[in-house]
């Protein structure tokens, strides 16, 4: 028999299957916490930190990623406080600065309230969300992609730099990659990073109804978790 826990997310009582993450619980009950690296079938890696929430613990609040946080009975979670919004906006800005060439990242940033990016654009075309790597290792079990290197040299690579023969050619690494959708204005050249302004409607919607899905069209090639629930 399935066991359930009840927790409070943004003052709403939410019932969740025991063992589910807070993000899962929120999504299942129709509350969207912005997230990027999380893919429902895969183990959450907590790489992008976009899904941060405030957890009340003994009267103090703690900020942590909700995709790696197990839902427990009696938990009190706030996903949309002033503090969270500020932090999340900053994280989103950093993500856009790292890889401005992705519509998915830009859309999420806009949803998080980013109106301009204060950091220099790096045009790295990879935010190291690890979606491709976890799919390759966990789901298709090909183990042909992985993170190599440390610190600022960390990057995704084939084993030994070239062993593509391990690849099963399932193509899901590109399918899940947030970089696979370029901004509406086409790919950017180095040095001319911009925040795609075509989604102003999203900002407007965001300000009025903070928790709702703004149909950000991330589905195309990016697979918003939301789509699996509607």
């Amino acid at each position, binding site marked *: 028999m399935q066991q359930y826990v009840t927790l409070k997310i943004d003052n709403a009582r939410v019932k969740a299957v025991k063992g589910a993450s807070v993000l899962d619980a929120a999504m299942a009950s129709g509350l969207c916490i912005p997230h990027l690296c999380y893919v429902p079938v895969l183990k959450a890696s907590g790489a992008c930190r976009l899904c941060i929430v405030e957890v009340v613990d003994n009267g103090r609040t703690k900020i942590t990623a909700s995709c790696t946080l197990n839902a427990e009975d009696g938990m009190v979670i706030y996903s949309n406080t002033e503090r969270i919004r500020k932090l999340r906006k900053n994280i989103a800005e950093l993500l856009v600065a790292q890889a401005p060439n992705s519509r998915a990242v830009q859309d999420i940033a806009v949803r998080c309230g980013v109106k301009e990016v204060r950091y220099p654009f790096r045009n790295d075309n990879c935010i190291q969300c690890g979606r491709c790597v976890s799919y390759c*290792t966990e789901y298709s079990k090909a*183990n042909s992609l*992985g993170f*190599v290197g*440390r610190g600022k040299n960390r990057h995704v690579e084939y*084993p*030994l730099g070239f*062993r593509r023969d*391990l690849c099963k050619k399932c193509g899901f690494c590109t399918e899940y990659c947030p970089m696979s959708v370029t901004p509406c204005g086409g790919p950017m050249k180095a040095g001319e990073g911009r925040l795609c302004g075509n989604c102003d409607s999203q900002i407007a919607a965001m300000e009025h109804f903070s928790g709702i899905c703004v149909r950000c069209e991330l589905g195309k090639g990016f697979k918003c978790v939301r789509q699996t629930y509607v």
Partner: protein
Amino acid sequence: MIMTALNSILKGRRSQPHLLIEVLQDAQDLYGYIPEEAMNAVSRELGVPLMKVYRVACFYKAFSLKPRGKYVFTVCTGTACHVRGANLLLDQVKGQLNIEPGETTEDGLVTIENVNCVGACALGPVVIQDGAYCHHMTPGKLRKAIDKSRGKKKKERAHA
């Protein structure tokens, strides 16, 4: 040849993925670096995906994927050693051997590496010469040590 030597390393350790680092360390000691064949063999015998073997081998400074020189000088550039002038040591070797840290001289004799802290901060700046810790290094001492290992006498250098 690689396989016979590896067999002795792998003996009694097959199919035990948790021994990966140990095995790689032994392979590193044996060859001076980790050859590709060794990585393939380790991955096969221990049952660890090749990606993981490669990732671990890339992560630790103790493993090198390129053949190393006969003499390896490891300069510590950790915080304490940096404060005490490790960058002068690096400048010294760069000027003397014309190579960057991580590279090997063309004759395959000397390799210079840098690591971040070897755990002997009080003795800094530290240079490890083929496994032996040399404390309180100065550019002068380092120059002599390098010359010695390359088999050059002081006089020779003066004439050169």
